[in-house]
């Protein structure tokens, strides 16, 4: 875990035109942590993720990874720093085979042929269904299968920080369980994780810490225990 650094977001503000999607968000993903980001629809979770990955330019604020400022870097540059994302909506390559999707997930390591191969084996071990369907076009798989592929593709980049934007969306309960287990395993192997979830209980149960985002503003921050015990969190995100 020596090459682990922390991801620090400071006073981040993001606008869509005149609309302020994020306002002064400050948040940290420490080395080796699993951090959960809770928030209702439209709270700005995906916006935050997109901004970290360089798909969206912030209006102000900073994002630093170790000593490097990520603001202004291209998405390519950011993924090279070791920050990979499994995005909302999956953004797969629907007409390419499952395996090609995964291989492209390892695009930044393309010179390391053996490494990419090992990565493939690891992903197939995590999601055996992907191995069965590896020659099928990604777009013709079911929603859940595609979600697994999207996670697998992000893992192929061998990230140091993994951003997971609602990975359980549309997944069967059994698979949600698997996915969260996988997240824990990845984390145990040394990857920090920032996880956005609607499924707050499940997410908090594997997380170290968490934040609550409402209308673009961070309103709450705490450890797993603190958040699980918080009444507001319980009523808004866990359900009774």
């Amino acid at each position, binding site marked *: 875990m020596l090459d682990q650094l922390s991801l620090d977001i400071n006073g981040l503000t993001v606008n869509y035109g005149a609309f302020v999607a994020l306002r002064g968000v400050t948040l940290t993903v420490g080395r080796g942590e699993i951090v959960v980001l809770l928030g209702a629809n439209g709270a700005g979770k995906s916006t935050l993720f997109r901004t970290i990955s360089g798909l969206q330019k912030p209006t102000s604020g900073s994002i630093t990874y170790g000593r490097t400022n990520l603001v202004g870097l291209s998405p390519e540059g950011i993924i090279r720093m070791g920050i990979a994302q499994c995005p909302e909506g999956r953004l797969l390559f629907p007409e390419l085979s499952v395996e090609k999707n995964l291989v492209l997930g390892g695009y930044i390591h393309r010179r390391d042929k053996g490494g990419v191969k090992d990565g493939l084996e690891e992903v197939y071990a995590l999601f055996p269904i992907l191995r069965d369907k590896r020659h099928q076009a990604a777009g013709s798989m079911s929603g859940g299968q595609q979600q697994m592929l999207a996670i697998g593709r992000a893992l192929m980049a061998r990230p140091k920080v993994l951003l997971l934007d609602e990975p359980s969306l549309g997944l069967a309960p059994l698979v949600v369980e698997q996915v969260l287990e996988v997240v824990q395993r990845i984390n145990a192997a040394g990857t920090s994780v920032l996880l956005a979830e609607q499924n707050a*209980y499940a997410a908090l149960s594997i997380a170290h810490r968490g934040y609550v985002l409402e209308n673009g503003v961070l309103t709450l921050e705490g450890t797993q225990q603190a958040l699980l015990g918080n009444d507001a969190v319980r009523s808004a995100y866990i359900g009774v």
Partner: protein
Amino acid sequence: MTSSPNTDLLQVENLGIAFGGLQAVSGVNYRVTPNAINAVIGPNGAGKSTFFNLLSGFYKPTSGRILWRGQDVTRVPAHEMAKLGIARTFQTTSLFKELPIIENVLLGTRLRGRSGVWDAILRTSRLKREENEARERASWALDFVGLGPNDPRPVAMLTQEAQKRVSIAIALATNPNLVLLDEPAAGINPEETAGLTRLIRKMTEHGLTVLLIEHKMNMIMNLANHIMVLHHGQKIAEGTPQEVQGDPAVISAYLGGGSRA
């Protein structure tokens, strides 16, 4: 609830479809319980959405029959199915993105209209009558789902939850008997899910029949009267939530042992 042939709404016999080599749905026999909340669950890729696409006329089955009120509707095209009284929503929220709410819902009323190009050119009374009826129906549907008609923004700018409600309103505007909802609660939070649950209950209170795909087990187990479980395109179980929940085949294929969901 007993179902005699004339109270039957929708029934399928030996329904199946194959994509190339893949049998996405196969040999499914199923009868929708009228005026109740019916659910279809199953692992990802089980064939649930495909099953809906068959029922709503989007896919043509490669085997079996679909009966609507006792009549064979297996080959009826999608828009005719809607006219018969089967409305649906899509797994990824599907809307007329650049149009405002009211226009979206008005389009749902279109199937009851008979007016055409000439009515428009000649401004016939039929056109005006239909237009009024359509607006009434649309505002009823919006009211039903709890939205106001006056938001001029394109629906693409609304929240996920509002978009889901709009898509249900479009379905309701077609004046259906049976509503197929494909994962209506995906991507919305527990609070909103509760609201949606209430909305679905209200639909059956109004005499509608609901057929629902969902992965949120809390919701399904609370809401559904009857559940069918699909796995690899085949029906592996069917019954009340209690029955299904305890079925070992369902547990091993879908629910798993944990309680995180």
